[in-house]
């Protein structure tokens, strides 16, 4: 009898333990389809497309990460379409406490406004986040913002809810934003990227510096340019790091754990397309880094990696991540979407029948690269790849959309593949989101931005569980339209512990 009572009490206590931490307002990060990561009301909801995500682990408490996600937001409730969404509550979940659009700011006396391409980078050593977006005005360029964590946690500067233009300004302009790569009119570059030298400020030349890279193309110039800024946004002149190719695209910058800046981009001419890699020594911002000539990672052949689907529209956007090894060495992992099988209908351009994510690796700082291998060999489209390395544990995570569960190769799920520390071997592809999502969404004239998923993985110490966040676009949460519920595209987030 006593044992039965004890058993019953244990069961009740166990159930309470299971249910107690999950209040009605808790937004689980790792629910089967992740979590919607915005505050948009459901009535006449408009699409949000995921851009990028980063975090400061345990910054809000044990197991509670400060998360900043950015993306494209088509709802006019925000100051601009360059949305930011922040989790800062004391509940360790994926709820959003505030959101907004990056504010206009003044450059040389004229306002510049955001128009897309938003990205984010965390700086754990200096407790800050950096956000960048494309800018439009009399002079366009890349806008670079800095927000300290103290500001992001300040409910006066950054109040809860959806920010007006004034609140966006108070939240993101304590450090005055800067305009990089200024060009007349709208920003004429393509994809840009930012990275922070996360070393402690006293660790050496360049520690704490922020780097931005983009390709610039107008009637007079076309190149890939790199700019260096101090952590408080004192920026130097941009330098050209490309090799006078006929055109360039898809530049992406990272900073090695030793402070060396690495850039990959795509350069080519009418007959060839190469993924290239550049290594730069920091000179201490605002001094520009000193860069080597680009090396070729891989020659790309065949069609663009755009599968034959109305929604799946990735681009060739190679990305890399760097893992520190023993003895001061580094392993660089680079992923990109590739067309596995091309098809040329009579009289038409080559089409991509199925996309794959390829991985190549370098153990000599980008001089030579391994033969690319497919991250996921299951039938279907694998695309929108991104890669990150947890600097604390050395685990490398690759995230991508996969249509392998859908015979029509239209609906997708988020997958990941993990490379363990000390190894360059891929693991087994892991399904992250459970529902096959057609991404058809609300406003049928807007195709969702699924060029790439956002990824960030950070831990606190070796041997302790780290967390991977993946930002992605999803249509599993409905909006309400004239009284009828219908799928709505949302920037979403999911979390994986590893």
């Amino acid at each position, binding site marked *: 009898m006593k044992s039965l009572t004890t058993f019953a009490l244990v069961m009740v206590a166990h159930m309470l333990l299971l249910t107690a931490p999950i209040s009605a307002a808790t937004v689980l990060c790792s629910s089967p389809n992740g979590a919607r990561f915005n505050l948009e009301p459901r009535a*006449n909801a*408009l699409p949000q497309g995921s851009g990028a995500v980063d975090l400061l682990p345990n910054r809000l408490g044990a197991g509670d990460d400060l998360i900043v996600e950015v993306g494209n937001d*088509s709802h006019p409730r925000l100051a601009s379409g360059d949305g930011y969404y922040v989790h800062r509550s004391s509940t360790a979940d994926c709820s959003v406490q505030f959101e907004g659009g990056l504010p206009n700011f003044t450059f040389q006396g004229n306002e510049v406004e955001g128009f897309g391409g938003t990205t984010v980078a965390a700086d754990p050593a200096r407790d800050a986040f950096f956000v960048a977006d494309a800018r439009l005005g009399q002079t366009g360029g890349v806008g670079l913002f800095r927000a300290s964590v103290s500001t992001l946690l300040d409910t006066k500067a950054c109040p809860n809810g959806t920010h007006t233009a004034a609140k966006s300004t108070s939240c993101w302009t304590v450090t005055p934003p800067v305009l990089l790569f200024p060009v007349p009119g709208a920003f004429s570059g393509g994809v840009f990227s930012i990275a922070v030298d996360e070393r402690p400020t006293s660790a050496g030349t360049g520690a704490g510096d922020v780097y931005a890279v983009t390709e610039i193309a107008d009637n007079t110039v076309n190149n890939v340019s790199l700019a260096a800024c101090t952590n408080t946004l004192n920026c130097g002149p941009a330098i050209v790091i490309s090799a006078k190719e006929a055109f360039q695209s898809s530049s992406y910058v990272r900073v090695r754990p030793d402070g060396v800046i690495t850039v990959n981009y795509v350069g080519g001419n009418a007959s060839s397309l190469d993924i290239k890699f550049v290594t730069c020594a920091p000179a201490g911002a605002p001094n520009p880094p000193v860069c080597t000539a680009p090396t070729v990672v891989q020659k790309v052949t065949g069609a663009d990696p755009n599968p*034959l*689907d*109305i*929604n799946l529209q990735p681009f060739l956007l190679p990305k890399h991540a760097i893992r520190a090894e023993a003895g001061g060495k580094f392993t660089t992992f680079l992923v990109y979407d590739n067309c596995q*099988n*091309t*098809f040329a*209908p*009579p009289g*038409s351009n080559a*089409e991509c*029948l*199925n996309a794959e994510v390829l991985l190549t690796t370098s153990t000599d700082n980008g001089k030579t690269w391994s033969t690319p291998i497919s991250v996921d060999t299951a039938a279907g489209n694998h695309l929108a790849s991104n890669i990150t390395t947890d600097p604390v544990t050395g685990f490398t995570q690759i995230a991508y959309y996969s249509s392998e569960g*859908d*015979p*029509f*190769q*239209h*609906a997708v799920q988020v997958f990941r593949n993990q490379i363990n520390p000390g190894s360059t071997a891929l693991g087994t592809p892991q399904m992250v989101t459970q*529902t096959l*999502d*057609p991404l*058809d*969404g*609300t*406003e*049928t*004239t*807007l195709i969702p931005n699924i060029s790439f998923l956002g990824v960030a993985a950070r831990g606190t110490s070796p041997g302790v569980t780290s967390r991977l966040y993946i930002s992605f676009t999803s*249509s*599993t949460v409905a909006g309400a*339209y*004239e*009284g*009828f519920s*219908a*799928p709505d595209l949302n920037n979403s987030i999911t979390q994986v512990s590893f």
Partner: protein
Amino acid sequence: MKTHGHVARLTILLFLFTLHASASAKAAGSSPCTAPNGSIFNLEPRPNAVTQAALSVAFLPNRAGAGLDLVVATATDQRGLSDSPEAFYVQRSTENCAADLEGGFPSISNAMGLFMPLGTPIVVADPAHDGFFIADLRFASSPDLNGVGIIKATSASLLNATNCPKGTQTAGSAGCFTTGSVSNITSLNDFLVDPNLAVDQRTSGTGAGDVYTVVTETLAPHDFGDTSIFLTACTNADLNCSNSTLISAEDAEAKFAWVQVRPDGVITVSYVNFNSLVPTSEEVKFVTCTPNGAPNPPTCSAPVLVTTETAPVFNKFIGQTRLVDLTMPKHAHRLESNGTVTTFLTYDRCEVKLLKLSKADNGTCPKTDVVVTSSTDGGQTWSPIAKVTNSPFQQFFSAIATDSSTGTVNIAYYSTENDATFQTRPQVFLAQIAPGTTSVGTPSLQTSASIYPNTIAAIPTQLEPVGLGDRIGLAAAGTGTAGQSHAYVGFTWNSVFGTYGGVSLPDMNNHLTFLQY
């Protein structure tokens, strides 16, 4: 000998068992026609397959044999059989919704030129005269002209394996047809679209057996914005056609005409009048015409307004499907036991306000319905518009046909009602209005499988139909005995994949399914 007797009895028993099993299986719905995806109804090889989008279907019950319907369907076919994006498909050897033969259409020559097929073939059956008629658009050059083609195929010609052999008619399909004609010939400044036709099924009386076509004619002086509906009457035997008659009066943007012939020979036409400059309403109109015996043109009344829809679905997205809808009213007549005629009219409408969430948004209907109305006074007055189903999400591409043998009215449509999460995967449904009533019964699911409709053709072709095309084909007939009627639904579906460079990908095909009742 005794052993042989046992073997013989066993054989007979097995044979009877097999017969029973196959009969039971058919009754249980195991026919390929009632498979989860229906049955693909073309013969295109799978390598490098291109799009077929269903347009229409017609059949003659038991005409190919006992329990074997002679079925003819038409579709937009991007293979370009006979150098045109249209084709026909025939079932004549097995009752399994599989095409025995297919082909493009023959050209038609007359004093004004050689008219080549151009598109939008629509087929109707003519049980009273044992044949089929197909109307399509036609084009002639030097001078550039367009017209409405009509070709006739007798059942005998379609069943003639010598003149109309099985397989794809690579040598031309002229042997499958007996005669052809082109009517409503105009210059390309008066461009024609969306033909339709009907046959007077009577065997006596003025107009008996006559064939009527309708077509939308665009008027170049108004930048093709103004459109009118024209009606033509042709004789059954030799397709001797009347001059075309304007029947849409002053309606400036009359489109999507649908013609039927009542059991008493009266010709009826429904169409929609849309004002694209002030897109606030669509008017569904109905015209009644008295036959004068082809090639004399009928005498038509002024159009009657059936209803006005204030949320026009013309060229608007159907919910989340990324498919575009059109208001294409269609009607069917039912002869009542007291000799009167009830007319049922169905179309797609937006139940609520259209959404236009941004400047770039052309408009989305959050809830598309298939609706029906009926008239018992020859189209002068109409019952309140009623939904065919109260199912959630999107119902669209409605079609209607009366089985004159039983008086059952059939309504087919796509519905996304079973895709609760994303509301994009359609299935084919069929609803019936029982004889003597005007209320719609519970719809039945015709395709238990569903598809993603917005895939892209691996091989792009000019003027390719998008998604599921713009309509469903429907025909219903029987012997009058319960359980011996069929309602065939021709629909567009991509469950059968093509292969492209060794990779299997969705391919849109015309499919066929039926309901036996």
